[in-house]
């Protein structure tokens, strides 16, 4: 029942905003505070669900609700979580709240009212939470699609100068993927005679012909691959991320991409295991191409936000590589990488947004350098996030990448080992390139002296009789920004220092996924 409540809160919150503005919550500030309240309530519900979860048996689907929805075609309203989805539900609820908190003081500039923005984001949250809790294939697909429209609207209404083209590309591309995905899921479901994901997972593909599985898995991989994004289906992503407002980018990178990889683990792997074994080497190949390609693209990138966007291609490559190994450790790595990337890249997009607002540009060359002099705290947090993102052990980013490579060292027994060991080596070199582009970025913008044009500009500080005037040009970090960033920093440290927090929850269900105990 608790998940009905979890979905109902943001949905009711969004519907309530349809009331005329004059009667309900006049003024933008009130609406934004309302958004914080609603998503905060949703986070509380999610936390109580996490508290009610039985960690002794994380592979069992818990807190279920299973009702008839459209009995004529066998649709059921089936929600629930296990160890695979619980961390993602929490991540979604947390990141949504943080976005609202951030928007409290720093709403995106756009063509429409904050009222619409809050409503759209709440609908988005419904779709995301629904995707991670749905256990019926059609229900899953419905939530999967619900996400698209609000995100499209957020990009097109509050985005940057190239927003229209980016938003079109985003929605058309992902809709195309969704079509393939639906076809793949239905192909399996029709052959198996049920739409229930838990039931299908229990069967491990029994009773579905090999050829059907191969085709269905391909369709599903293409569908989820657009979302993930898997190279070469990634080109919507840099544009969408670059044009979206800060909170849009945070949610896109932090949660939306995870729908693709989560879908692969929740739907594609258990439904068509034979198909997975057939396509896994190709999936692995595209994954490592994505890792190296993303890193190289970042290395030559001139725009900060675009660089972070491309870094997602590389990081999600590690997640896909983990899945492609078809081993418990690889899928564990994927789930860990999902959460870590959500925390770290979410933080990075917040920071990039803060940089762009303060400096008025995201071009690395125009930013020049000396950020550690001008805005030491902002630059320090940016350094922290970059170091976390390049996979430093002891921070969240490391474990996912390391375990994915470990999985590739010994993939599933049916897969060609030499191929995957090669993938491992290439992936490892990709990790070095990842470090290279993050350090290049830090050197370029945080180190060095402040460029002459900025340092020389006379900036009369309000209380600066001495030479501290240059500092006052860059606004200090506001309380809302601290509130939005601190949980991400703390969690990055916590998950990195104590990886057991996540691995203890995911290991058992992942073993069950492959038929083990």
């Amino acid at each position, binding site marked *: 029942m608790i998940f009905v409540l979890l979905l109902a809160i943001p949905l009711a919150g969004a519907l309530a905003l349809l009331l005329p503005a004059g009667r309900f919550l006049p003024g933008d500030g009130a609406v934004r505070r309302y958004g914080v309240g609603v998503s905060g309530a949703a986070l509380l519900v999610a936390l109580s669900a996490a508290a009610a979860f039985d960690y002794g048996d994380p592979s069992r689907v818990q807190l279920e609700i299973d009702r008839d929805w459209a009995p004529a075609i066998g649709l059921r309203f089936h929600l629930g979580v296990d160890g695979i989805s619980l961390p993602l539900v929490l991540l979604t609820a947390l990141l949504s709240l943080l976005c609202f908190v951030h928007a409290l003081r720093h709403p995106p500039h756009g063509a429409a009212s904050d009222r619409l923005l809050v409503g759209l984001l709440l609908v988005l949250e419904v779709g995301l939470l629904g995707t991670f809790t749905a256990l019926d294939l059609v229900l899953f697909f419905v939530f999967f699609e619900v996400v698209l429209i609000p995100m499209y609207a957020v990009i097109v209404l509050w985005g940057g100068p190239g927003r229209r083209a980016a938003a079109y590309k985003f929605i058309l591309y992902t809709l195309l993927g969704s079509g393939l995905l639906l076809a793949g899921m239905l192909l399996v479901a029709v052959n198996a005679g049920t739409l229930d994901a838990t039931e299908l997972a229990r069967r491990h593909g029994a009773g579905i012909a090999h050829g059907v599985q191969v085709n269905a898995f391909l369709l599903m991989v293409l569908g989820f691959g657009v979302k993930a994004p898997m190279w070469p289906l990634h080109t*919507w992503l840099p544009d969408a991320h670059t044009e979206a407002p800060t909170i849009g980018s945070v949610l896109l990178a932090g949660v939306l991409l995870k729908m693709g990889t989560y879908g692969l683990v929740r739907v594609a792997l258990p439904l068509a295991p034979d198909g997975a074994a057939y396509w896994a080497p190709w999936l692995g190949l595209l994954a490592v191409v994505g890792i190296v390609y993303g890193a190289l*693209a970042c290395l030559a990138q001139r725009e900060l936000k675009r660089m972070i966007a491309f870094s997602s291609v590389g990081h999600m490559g590690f997640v896909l590589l983990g899945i492609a190994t078809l081993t418990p*450790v*690889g899928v564990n790595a994927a789930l860990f990488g999902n959460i870590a990337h959500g925390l770290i890249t979410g933080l990075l997009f917040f920071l990039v947004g803060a940089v762009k607002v303060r400096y008025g540009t995201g071009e690395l060359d125009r930013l020049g350098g000396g950020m550690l002099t001008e805005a030491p705290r902002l630059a320090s947090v940016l350094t922290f996030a970059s170091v976390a993102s390049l996979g430093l052990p002891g921070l969240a980013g490391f474990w996912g990448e390391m375990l994915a490579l470990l999985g590739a060292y010994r993939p599933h027994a049916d897969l060609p080992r030499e191929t995957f060991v090669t993938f491992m080596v290439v992936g*490892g070199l990709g990790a070095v390139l990842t470090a*290279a582009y993050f350090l290049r970025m830090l050197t370029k913008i945080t180190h060095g002296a402040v460029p002459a044009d900025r340092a020389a500009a006379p900036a009369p500080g309000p209380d600066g009789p001495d030479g501290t005037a240059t500092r006052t040009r860059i606004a200090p970090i506001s309380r809302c920004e601290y509130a939005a960033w601190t949980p991400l920093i703390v969690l990055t440290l916590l998950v990195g220092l104590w990886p057991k927090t996540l691995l203890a929850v995911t290991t058992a269900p992942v*073993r069950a996924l492959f038929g083990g105990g």
Partner: protein
Amino acid sequence: MIALISVVILLPFVAAFAGMLLGPRLSETLRARPPRDKAAPHAEAQAEAPAEGRRARWQAAATAERSPLRNGPALIACLPVAVAAVLSAVAAFAVWRTPGTRTGTLTLVETGTVPIEIGLRLDGLPAVVGLMVCLVALAVQVYSVAYMAEDPRYSSYAAFISLFTSAMLLVVYAGDLLLLYVGWEVMGVCSYFLIGHHWEDRANSRAAVKAFLVTRLGDVGFLFGVFVLGVGARSFDIGEIWARAGTLPHATVTAAALLLLAGVAGKSAQFPLHTWLPDAMAGPTPISALIHAATMVAAGVYVVARVYGVFLAAPAALALLGLVAVVSMLGSALAALAQDDIKRVLAYSTISQLAVMAAGLAVGAWNGAIFHLLAHGAFKALLFLAAGCVIVTAGSTMLRHYGGLRTGMPITFWSMTIGLAALVGVPPVSGWFSKDSVIEAAQHAAAHGGDIAAGGVHIPAGVAWTVYAGLLLTAAVTAAYAMRLWLMTFFGEPRGRYEVREAPKLMSWTVAALAVPSAVVGFFGLGAAELRPHLGSAVVALLCAAVGAGAAFSIWNRDPAADPARALGPAREVFARAFYVDELYAAAVVRPVQAVARQVVAVDRRGIDTAVVGAARGARRLAEPLRRPQNGNPQTYLTGLIAGIVLIAAGAVIFL
């Protein structure tokens, strides 16, 4: 005991966070008046007149030591590491009294395959190395209070040293290879931050990036080596791996050992991944002493010693280690001969001495290598910190600006003399004992056709001879560059405009304190048979050293004002540029990668994305003919409708 050493690791870790977040606030609480008003004019003075700046810097360092108890970041930095040093001494004492391995596991992290063990493992090796790390870290922290007194970012600097210390101790005490790897990488990032401490200068920033990337390249190999061992032995536990190394397939062990060597070469700055260490001298001098001389760079050698069972099972890897060591030790010793910068001389000397340890491991002198690691930790830290005193006084890092410093700074002079004597291997200073045990082992291996001391393992006899010859040649070159550094710094006439006086007490006394272990650590080796000096090898090595030192002295004596390196002639430039390896890498690796990266961006725009956008455009073009009929003209629609009806009717009539 395990609880004790986990406290040793955690103390600096907590100190790092506390220092980062609370350091400056604590000083404000402790101090009656704000300290900043004094520091600002100093900084300006330094910009205006170099000589004035030097005096100001000396003054700031001297005043800092008058109130160390009121300096918040300094307290947070020094006290925990002092306590950790005491505790690690207790642990080392306990291990000495009752030898044996103590292990403790906090928890097991399930990964879906081989689990990761969060556990520590204490035996003789980690006990002594851990103690050495704590003591050097303490010395460096105390020294830094004065050395970095006028630095506005002292608190973050000290916090990173604390974090580094904690990571290094984790490497030393870890019982699981993946846990060790965590410490290994955290050390790397601390090194990055500290090399780039003065990031206002882009050159420092570039040096930091280079250090991180080159070592990380090696670390990837290291991580894969850990995978190979862990998956092969079904455990990442060091004890298990050592126990099962002999039973693993030969190919597996050899592959693992070779992969581990990649990481070792990166961290311990061995050929071909050595290029980062000389550039890393861009960091503050105490950092060079701690990270780039005594501890982190020694971690590579330490790890080989820690999983030595794996290397004994893979003699091919031992042979490769020996060859890499010979190239590194001789090449970098020659490079040290021609450097102008005192810190770069010491950096190349570090590469060379680390190679001596690696060579010792390659010829089976496990005890000798560790002995040299400990002795080197003491005397190289001493040399760097003493160099820091010289730099503060003379205001330059260039040897050609020094001269005649012997009279004014006796503590530094005598300490550095002891340090250089240890480096050269003059009896009875520590380096003589430790280096001799390595040379003796190499001699033994060479004489016995490659049979190395550790039971029944062979390396090719040619490799053993190469190692032996390399060690002797290096001894000669080492003596030459040490003599050159000693003479150019302390003797002759002063070549710069500076006032010769001893560095502030906090610095000079720390250096003097380090001179004690540098001098006497060697005598501890008398307890073990294989560490006692051997007459034959000792005499040969001493002769080599005497030739090198004598040559350097006689060249210098002809013209004490000039650089003895001039005698190298055309080779000088080659040595000074370290055989152009940097230039080679820039041309062979860095520029190609950058070019490919630019290509990728272009391909992404013009290739893949154009295909996507093109598909959309194609769809629109396809739709264009279909749009034509839908022009909104009812007449056309009606015509179409009627035509359709006629067609259907005609069809029905004809076919039915």
